[in-house]
């Protein structure tokens, strides 16, 4: 099973790791891991959260020191461990998920940042920095005004600046940690082109991404980690998404289409010709009691903006929204919540939950009126309410007063769902509910969604992962460039059909 196909190709690896072990506080984060990257290849590193991907990257870039016995071979040199300086000097660069850029500084300063480093003060040579920056951008076939502060540019351009910075460092091997997480499709395409350019010029790229479609498209080989151990290294030729999922989780998922026919149920939400110029135009659809309506489409298609408009946080320019037949106008999300609409944010870490605060407080924040007794908040009512929801949704927690940040992604998402259910919604909008949730825990979330639909709740499920909506929604709308372009019934079509339409 652990096929070492690198041996087959006969090429000498650029980077070769053997016997990598790492322990944190008694927990083994990496167990005897090996990892090879060939010169100039695009290699994907896959695994669930906590599988050891980022630990491995940190060992290669010298942030962590592996246990004795480790062998790191890079570009003909052998090391027992790396340091950030040796890693950078020998040509290993990382593009972190948060990019580690400096928004107030100019593009040139960001790209040629290395020239600013050093213990002793020197005078800055701005002309040399500018030249370096322009040269690095030219290699990527991009032109940016290098004298403007970086904050003037959007996330996609910042990504390019981060790549250019890696090139200034004479990279032979570049790690990209979830580089496409916040890019739109055309931006992602551009980025993938850049990765191909890099690879063609002899720079090896290790890609860490949870978007399996992308992984299959861009990389030639794939290394899978699970629970800190190596599962194997594979060629991506002939590999499928479900096979990768299986390798990552060690389980097989028999996904069946859950779609039911709910056309007899009364309509809960009716949207007609809703527009917000520049974000979405002329949107019309209905959601019925007990129905799960999937909305899919690429990032930037206007899905989140549409959801926020239904939730009262954005104002549509024109069109009508009817809730149970009555037209509604929300001046804030408080009106929407009171009317029975709940919205689970796509950004759980900074918008969905208040990470430092307790599990209990996060759960009751949107339904404080329920725990009032005699005009005051009641601790015992709060405790009971929280205990009931935790039992209902099968959340594993320590104490109710623990910070929510101590929970896993999947359990956090369950609390976030419970928070909205506690407001007695008629319509629940789930925006990308599985982001940052392990593949294994995702099924649990969708089981909850299915149960909720059974009880008659109307659900809008937004996701850019087509299989999620295909398997879990009764009806799927395809949104592109701010418009609904098509509707699919999972019961009557194949996954490939929808995927072909969305990724076309």
């Amino acid at each position, binding site marked *: 099973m652990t096929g070492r196909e690198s041996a087959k190709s006969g090429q000498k690896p650029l980077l070769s790791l053997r016997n990598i072990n790492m322990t944190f506080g*008694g927990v083994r984060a990496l167990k005897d891991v090996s990892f090879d990257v060939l010169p100039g290849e695009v290699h994907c590193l896959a695994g669930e959260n906590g599988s050891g991907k980022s630990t491995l990257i940190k060992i290669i870039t010298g942030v962590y020191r592996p246990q004795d016995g480790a062998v790191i071979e890079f570009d003909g040199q052998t090391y027992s461990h790396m340091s950030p300086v040796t890693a950078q000097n020998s040509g290993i660069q990382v593009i972190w998920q948060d990019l580690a850029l400096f928004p107030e500084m100019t593009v040139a300063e960001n790209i040629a940042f290395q020239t600013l480093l050093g213990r002793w003060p020197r005078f800055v040579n701005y002309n040399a920095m500018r030249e370096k920056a322009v040269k690095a951008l030219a290699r990527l076939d991009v032109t940016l005004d290098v004298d403007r502060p970086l904050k003037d540019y959007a996330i996609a351009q910042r990504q390019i600046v981060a790549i250019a910075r890696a090139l200034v460092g004479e990279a032979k091997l570049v790690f990209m940690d979830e580089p496409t997480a916040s890019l739109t499709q055309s931006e992602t395409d551009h980025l993938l082109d850049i990765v191909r350019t890099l690879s063609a010029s002899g720079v090896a790229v290790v890609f860490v991404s949870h978007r399996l479609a992308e992984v299959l498209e861009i990389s030639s080989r794939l290394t899978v980690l699970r629970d800190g151990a190596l599962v194997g290294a594979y060629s991506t030729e002939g590999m499928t998404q479900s096979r990768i999922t299986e390798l990552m989780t060690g389980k097989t998922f028999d996904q069946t289409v859950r779609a039911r026919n709910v056309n007899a149920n009364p309509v809960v939400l009716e949207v007609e010709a809703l527009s917000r110029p520049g974000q979405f135009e002329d949107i019309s659809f209905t959601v019925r009691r007990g129905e799960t309506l999937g909305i899919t489409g690429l990032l930037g298609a206007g899905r989140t903006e549409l959801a926020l408009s239904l939730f009262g946080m954005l104002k549509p320019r024109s069109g009508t929204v009817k809730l149970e037949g009555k037209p509604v106008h929300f001046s804030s999300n408080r009106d929407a919540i009171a009317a029975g609409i709940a919205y689970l944010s796509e950004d759980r870490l900074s918008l969905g939950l208040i*990470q430092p*605060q307790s599990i209990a407080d996060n759960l009751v*924040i949107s339904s404080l009126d329920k725990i009032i007794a005699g005009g005051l908040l009641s601790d015992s009512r709060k405790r009971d309410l929280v205990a009931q929801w935790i039992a209902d949704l099968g959340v594993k927690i320590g104490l109710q007063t623990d910070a929510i940040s101590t929970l896993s992604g999947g359990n956090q998402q369950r609390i976030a769902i419970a928070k909205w259910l506690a407001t007695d919604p008629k319509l629940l909008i789930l925006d990308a509910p599985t982001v940052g949730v392990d593949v294994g825990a995702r099924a649990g979330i969708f089981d909850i969604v299915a149960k909720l639909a059974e009880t008659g709740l109307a659900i809008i499920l937004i996701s850019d992962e087509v299989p999620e909506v295909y398997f879990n929604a009764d009806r799927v709308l395809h949104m592109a460039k701010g418009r609904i372009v098509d509707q699919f019934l999972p019961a009557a079509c194949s996954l490939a059909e929808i995927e072909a339409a969305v990724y076309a």
Partner: protein
Amino acid sequence: MTAILNRIKVALGPDMAGPGFALIAVLVIFSLASPQFFSWATFGSVAFQLPELGLLTLAMLLPVLTGGLNLAITFTANLAGLTVAWVLQQNGGADAGPFAFFLGSVLGVGVGALSGVVMGLVIAYTRAHPILVSLSMMIFLRGLGEFLTRGGDVSGFPAFLQPLGHGSILGFPVPLLVFIGCVLIWHLLLTRMKLGFNTYMIGSNIEAARYSGVNTRKVLVLVYTLSGAMCAIAGIIMLARFNSVRVGHGESYLLITVLACFLGGVNPFGGFGRVIPVAVALVVLQLLSSGLNILGANQHLATAVWGILLITVMVLRFAAGHFKSLKRKKG
């Protein structure tokens, strides 16, 4: 035994460790250093001096919990005092009746609340940093007060105000009773009311609170309004204690109130902190200054010791956190 200890720990909360430890240390050190320390005189002076600083600290606490700061508290208190003084003077000065005082107090609290409303609106709607907004409000109020009083004192108040500053009920000084009342109100507000709950949530993550349906602007405006109103109560107590109002009275308390909040375990970034530990921290500060006074030092030395105490507590907290994470790493 450990179970009981744990229960006490949970009841007191982890933020009680710093001020609790300091309280015991101060009591032990001073009672060893001076036999006079454990006396009614000491506790009497603490009881009379605590309320001014204490009320201002309560006014500082709410904005700090939202992740902000209100640097205008002392001058808000002065202006509220001036308002009361003005109403009293309009009604005969020393001969003014209780109703004039009542009217003045209502207006004074209104003036304090107004300064809070303005700050709250600016902070809530422009997202300007609270330090800057309250700093400019402080400069403005100081200027306004000095302009109105030409830098002088306003005095000559009716005799019935005397007990409010110096009297006792059942042996408890009146200002202390006012302070205790306000502590209880603040405690109730923060632990049992929606506004208090939302104050903590906003302090940790204002955007996430807004997405959860919290009216964040309303909460911010109310927090600064209540802060301003509490300043006014402090201003009225100060008026009664000094029997005069001068712009600049209590100015030196400004940064001490922030110090007291941090000493009381309030998170400097907002979101966490309770009233009772802050009240204990205030008692510690006041005991320190009274104790040093008995030993012959003046208030200035006490100020320096307060600073040292804050650093000591912060260093101990750092060391405790460090120790805990070491223990966790070793499993």
